[in-house]
């Protein structure tokens, strides 16, 4: 299973909720405004780093670029749309919208 999260973690509890359902083999893909969670130096960084210790976390590169997020937290894997498709090929998708 692959979780996708498309909301900013600052105003929306979607990622917090998702992290409570995640397990070792369910990667999380941040897309759209969800990619703000992968940004370095934010008040969410600590939570994301804790999550990185437990789960694989991906962020969609085109969405990072769109938002001008140049520094991404170490350990977050950046993928393009082809990488999104690869993840959806390997896993069933659970959109945490």
């Amino acid at each position, binding site marked *: *299973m692959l979780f996708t999260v498309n909301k900013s973690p600052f105003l929306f*509890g979607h990622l917090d*909720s998702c992290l*409570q*359902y*995640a*397990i070792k083999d*369910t990667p999380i893909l941040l897309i759209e405004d969800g990619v703000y969670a992968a940004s370095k130096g934010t008040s969410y960084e600590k939570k994301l780093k804790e999550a990185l210790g437990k789960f694989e976390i991906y962020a969609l590169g085109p969405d990072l670029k769109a938002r001008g997020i140049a520094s991404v937290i170490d350990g977050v894997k950046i993928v393009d749309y082809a990488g999104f498709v690869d993840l959806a090929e390997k896993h*069933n*998708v*659970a*959109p*945490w*919208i």
Partner: protein
Amino acid sequence: MANPEEIEESSDEIVKKMMFVMRKAPHGTINPYEGLEVMLIVAAYDQDLSAVFLDDGVYAIKKGQDPKEIGVKDFSTTFRVLPGYGIEKIYVEKESLENRGLTVEDLLLEVEVVDKSEVTKLMQEQDVLFPF
């Protein structure tokens, strides 16, 4: 998840595990209603169906909803027909219920209360997840 190649070859008798993941509150958005509509249609096909209500989704099956004064049609009681339509596996996430001060007594239909790890386990078993 079944092997895709197998699915291709036996498409006449496919029975998939499909789960409705209901996470949204009623009336503020149309999601629970449109989710219910999908359930009622998919129920006519012979699939292995279930629904889980979690986060604000538990509010969708709360008793006593009466949206007359906001000008909206009440659909909540329609959730009661689900078991009769063959959707018998209806789960509610425990903490979502508790955080909202609700118990199973407050809900419109009989449900099985499960914790988060059980929800994840159930979700992992599915072929299709419908998020509403």
